[in-house]
């Protein structure tokens, strides 16, 4: 069963999930449900440096949204 995640960031940046390159910011990512560590690829000019998420009960039209601020 698929769950949906949108990683918000002011610009396009590679998204790393559990350390693996998994798409990019500001589009919907389709994943299996459960716990993940989400961060962005370098440079580390964002905060927080990592989100711990528990991805469940989403749909493509209501994805989980997490946000990284640019610093």
């Amino acid at each position, binding site marked *: *069963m*698929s769950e949906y995640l*949108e990683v918000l960031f002011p610009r396009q940046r590679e998204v790393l*999930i*559990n*350390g*693996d*390159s*998994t*798409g*990019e910011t*500001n*589009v*919907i*990512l*389709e*994943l*299996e*449900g*459960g*716990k*993940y*560590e989400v961060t962005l690829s370098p440079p580390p000019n964002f905060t927080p440096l990592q989100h711990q998420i528990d991805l469940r009960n989403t749909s*493509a*039209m209501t*994805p989980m949204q997490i946000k990284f601020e640019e610093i």
Partner: protein
Amino acid sequence: MAASLSRSLIFVILLVLQIAACAHYPLNQQSHSFDKNAGYRFDNLNAGPRNTDSLFVCLTFSGGGTRAAALAYGVMEELRQTRIKVDGEEKSLLDEVDCISSVSGGSFTAAYYGLFRERLFQDFQTRFLERNIQGALTARLLNPVNLVRVASPWFSRIDLAGELYDREIFDGATFARLEQNGRPLVIMNATNLGPGRRFDFTQDHFDSIGSRLDLYPVSRAVAASSAFPFLLSPISLKNYPQAEGYEPPGWYKGALEPQDWASRRYNAAKNLNVYLDKQNAYVHLMDGGLADNIGARAILDAYERNFIRRRINQGKIKHLVLIVVNARTESEDTLSRKESPPGILTVAEKTATIAMDNYSFESVDKVRSEFYARVQTQKDLEAANQRLDQYCPQAPKFPPFKADVDTYVVEINFKAAALVPDEDPRYYLDLPTSFSLSKDQVEKLIAIGPKLLRASPQFQCLLKVLQAEAEGRPRPKECPIGAGIVGN
């Protein structure tokens, strides 16, 4: 004279004991280094000059002895003959095959192509398909030296089969050659008898058992994948400590939360745990058909949490195609017409096959459902955004996927021979599961593969869509997105 005979007898007995004691199956070798970006894993394989990610093609070759190997071979020939144009470059559809998941008899064709490529179409038919492999195995077993060797508790019939395949079919090749050849990734499936789970010969599994896949003979992987219960014995691997610096695959972290116990990700993590637990010091493998006789589960895993999922999220895959080559047979149902209940042999045969056949059906259906769900989600998002444009143009749009995926599941099976003129499905459905078929049977099986592929409406849609794209025309109306799953 008597003393001389006794001495000779003692000498012979000692010799026999020595040969038996020396006989041991070849052990997989321990790995002392770990590199998550190296080895026989999809992301590390060279795509080659004519393979794109935008058209992503995977094949599954089912079990079924020589019958399955020959049907798979026929389909490979048709893929080779099918000319397509992708990103302006003309090529064969076979050039675009990215992965092959195989079981039992199908593993012979998959491994041979993975190792020798074009040679498959030159000598595989004579080297394997038309050979009496069962007879050759029996002859080896009856060799007096081998009779002594199989008396050893560490050497058995499957090891003789492995030696035969190594010498006479796979030329001593190891997985290093598969890795050097690049795509397609060949995933050979076996069944781990201990936990009763699927085991595939990929880098992820060999990393978890701390072993060198690059040095492992392809012949033994094929032997494990096709070790038919009772006729052959299990292939055994040693489960070593993981190499220094080992990390499980990315999807594993966080997968074992107790509340997720019913999820497929949790189940996959539990499967990996079997090998991370070093109390399980050995892995005993038999025919992949016991766990999944169609090969679809490996593709499903790649779609849900591995290399296919990553490429979809990265927007690299435009057309995702799975061609399932299913050599399943089905005897005519005469039981339902009889008053008397079936005898014990029939009950035994049904016990061995009913669950396997039902699971195969469900496995393909699961892939079909997953691929179709993606298409429906894309359509829902597009429709919702169109409605917003129409009725509330100021409202923000729903975020998109990086790219939409056009999915296809093409299933080749003998029942579909009813769609082919002058073909009788019953001929194929009654063929035995054996590693010895007549030349006539092999030739018919090879010939039906291309016909079944061409008769598939999903396959025809794929070709029409690719042709329209190559010519810059709009997508054919008779093949909307989704027709690659449900037909048109």
